[in-house]
């Protein structure tokens, strides 16, 4: 800077600062704050599991994390949002091909597997995280209570704190909480929903989380998000699909040998069952690659990976119980409640979420809104979730968060 400009600047300071002398104090308007929400979104935190963390296609990395509905929502709010970036290719790297099981592998890197982990991005480390969601977390995890499902990602995301503790570091004014899916999802997909978190335990866990959050941030507002009805997950397909020879042929290609269909899948109670597409992996190593859709017809078959009618009812009732409590909790706190099943049903109706997987597609077998693992939303799925949340938030809190263009 030239001496002349310094002289001019000094003169300007003398003139302008003198004129500003009547101002009582420093200008706090220099502090960066969001422009939407009138302070409601000053500090937004997202708690949850893989759905919120940005897990897709059986893996997670910075690219998928950026696509999380929470990141999108924060962007629309215009508020700071730091997430625990996992350096590419990821931890584990996401699938890139449904048929081959290939995962993201940068050039020159060793071939990625489901055990590959490249840890947190050292360049983006921060002291204040806004997305504290951890893949695999269940209702006990946000407070680290009994039954929590801590894994390696728990450390990588939270660094020794719980989700609730890490969230409170951000002095949150707004939160989205989407927890509970892992209390039943894996059990239901395995065909063993009886191991789901009992309602009383779920309520206790959830209440502990909310109590801790509200104690640390008494004016906190936000959205409590309901649990997904597992039957809507495209990883489950109806047994009736096995009546379609083309679908069975596709399965056979995926398995690598001719898949046999037990007659109980085509008639009787077994025809009402839902089947986990992951059964393909079991069929690859089975001596006889046969799909059995009802328990008892074939010893040792028809249970694992099969959700029969009774189990479907149990799962539905359990999720309804969870969601009834979550909604009541939201109502009691003056928070919004959002039911994901409405959007999921709509996406199913449009074909964006498949009812029967398209096994001929190696890049979008479960529809455009679901990633290659058949459970987690794809980029467009997250946009749909974010837009639905925006509608809910705007309606509840009289805000004007703009929708995301599709």
């Amino acid at each position: 800077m030239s001496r002349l400009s310094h002289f001019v600047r000094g003169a300007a300071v003398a003139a302008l600062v003198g004129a500003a002398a009547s101002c009582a104090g420093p200008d706090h308007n220099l502090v960066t704050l969001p422009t939407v929400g009138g302070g409601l979104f000053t500090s937004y935190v997202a708690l949850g599991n893989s759905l919120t963390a940005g897990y897709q296609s059986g893996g997670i990395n910075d690219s998928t994390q950026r696509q999380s509905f929470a990141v999108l929502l924060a962007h629309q709010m215009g508020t700071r949002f730091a997430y625990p970036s996992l350096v590419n290719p990821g931890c584990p790297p996401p699938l890139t091909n449904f048929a081959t099981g290939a995962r993201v592998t940068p050039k020159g890197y060793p071939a990625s597997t489901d055990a590959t982990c490249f840890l947190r991005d050292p360049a983006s480390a921060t002291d204040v995280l806004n997305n504290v969601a951890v893949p695999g977390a269940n209702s006990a995890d946000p407070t680290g209570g009994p039954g929590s499902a801590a894994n390696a990602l728990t450390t990588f995301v939270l660094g020794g704190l719980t989700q609730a503790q890490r969230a409170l570091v951000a002095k949150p004014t707004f939160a989205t909480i989407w927890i509970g899916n892992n209390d039943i999802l894996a059990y239901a997909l395995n065909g063993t929903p009886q191991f789901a978190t009992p309602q009383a335990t779920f309520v206790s866990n959830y209440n502990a989380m909310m109590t801790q959050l509200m104690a640390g941030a008494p004016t906190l507002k936000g959205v409590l998000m309901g649990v997904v009805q597992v039957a809507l997950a495209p990883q489950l397909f109806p047994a009736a699909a096995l009546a379609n020879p083309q679908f069975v042929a596709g399965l056979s290609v995926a398995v690598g040998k001719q898949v046999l269909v037990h007659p109980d899948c085509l008639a009787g109670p077994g025809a009402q069952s839902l089947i986990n597409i992951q059964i393909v992996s079991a069929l690859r190593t089975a001596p006889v690659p046969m799909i059995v859709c009802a328990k008892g017809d074939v010893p040792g078959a028809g249970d694992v990976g099969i959700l029969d009618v009774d189990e479907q009812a149990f799962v539905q009732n359990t999720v309804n119980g969870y969601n009834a409590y979550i909604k009541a909790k939201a109502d009691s706190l003056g928070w919004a409640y959002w039911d994901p099943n409405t959007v999921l049903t709509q996406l199913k109706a449009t074909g964006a979420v498949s009812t029967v997987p398209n096994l001929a597609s190696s890049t979008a077998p479960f529809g455009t809104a679901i990633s290659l693992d058949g459970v987690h939303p794809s980029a467009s799925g997250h946009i749909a979730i974010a837009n639905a949340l925006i509608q809910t938030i705007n309606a509840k809190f009289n805000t004007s968060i703009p929708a995301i263009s599709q």
Partner: protein
Amino acid sequence: MKGNRFARYWVALASLGIPAVVSAQGFGLNEIGSCAIGRGYAATGAPCKDASVIYWNPAAASTLSGNSLLIAGGSIAVTGAFTRDSALGRTNADVPTSYVPSIFFNHTDANGFAWGLGVYVPYGLTSQWPASFPGRFLADKASIKTIYIQPNFAWKLNDNWMVGGGPIIGHSDVELIQSLDLADQPTGAKDPLGNPIFFRQLGIARRTEFARGTLKGSANAYGFALGIYGRINDRWTMGARYMSALDFAYNNGNATFQQVPTGLTLAANNPLGLPAGTPVDALVASQFSSGALTSQGGTTSLPHPDQAEIGFGYTGLDRWLLSADYEWIGWGRFHQLDINFANPALGTRTQIEDYNNTSAIRLGAQYTDHNNWQWRVGFAGVSAAAPDETVTPIIPEQDRANYTAGLGIPFGKTLALDASYTYVWTPGRRGRIDDRANRTITATQLNSGVYTLAANIVTVALKASF
């Protein structure tokens, strides 16, 4: 006898200590004497009639007569804060009130030849923040205490013009206390590509304090001061002064480190292959006993920039003295702060400064009433030395406006008391709490909040002429 008196003054000066907080540009200080401060520091073209002219314009010592002694002290009370973006909190600075002494003696003979000595503090700094401050990894506390000792000589070139100057012997002490971030420490493990894994890659949050380091050092440096002063006509005077830069090399520094418990433990399936529950503090403990964080030597250097000032005085209004100065300070020589540790594992830590040269406009007025009381007011507008990328907790630099007032009360013909008050106003400025690793990182990327700063300064000077 004079020698003993000087020794007593020196002891008194030393016992006061010289901590201060910036009230000029950078870590510069203006609290030298008291009369000049009440006139908005505009005292180079219209010097005060006391021995502090040795600093404000060395040539003007020739305008004095006989012996002049000035003993002054200033108190500086600073309020400051950092407010993080996104409502992440406000931290008030924890700066103790600082006291700045100065002592001047001058003798001018009948021919206008003057000799004297000034001991003053043109540069100093204390910035201090509480233990919870998120920027403590740049500075918990930073302290610079610098004394200039200036023998001075002045003489008249003719009836209207005079020159003066003398060498400067500078002594400076620095202290820097920083927290150390566990997130930046290597774990000893490597990733699948063979690169070292740092704790931050395991999810350890930034600003996880695991140690506190203290660096202390002292240095001497030498320079000079020059001045010219004269009467343009019966109403106008002018003066100019120049004080050279002194570059202090703190080559005898000592660095010590203290471990701070984190209480963190490793989770299961950690990449270090250690059992779940392993204390992180145990993993880094050896660094304090036999590793990089043992006590060791350290060196650094710090430029104290040159100053140039030109000013004019006007006495055309009955009982009024008006003055205006322009000051330039060569802060542009402060490029970076390198801290060199003896242990190669720590190496050299560089803080990029990239200061700019600065300017100040100084305006003052003095009215002498019928009792010879002198009423003073002034204003100084000061541009910041630090660029937008270097607004840090060490010096949250910003443009400043200094509003001053003062009063001089004579006691007989030999004694007088001066007092001044200054309010330092700043507009607030965006700044950072993180290190700037290289010059490609912009202020927009770095700055994460706003520093505010204000100060109330009071000075008192006792003057004697004999």
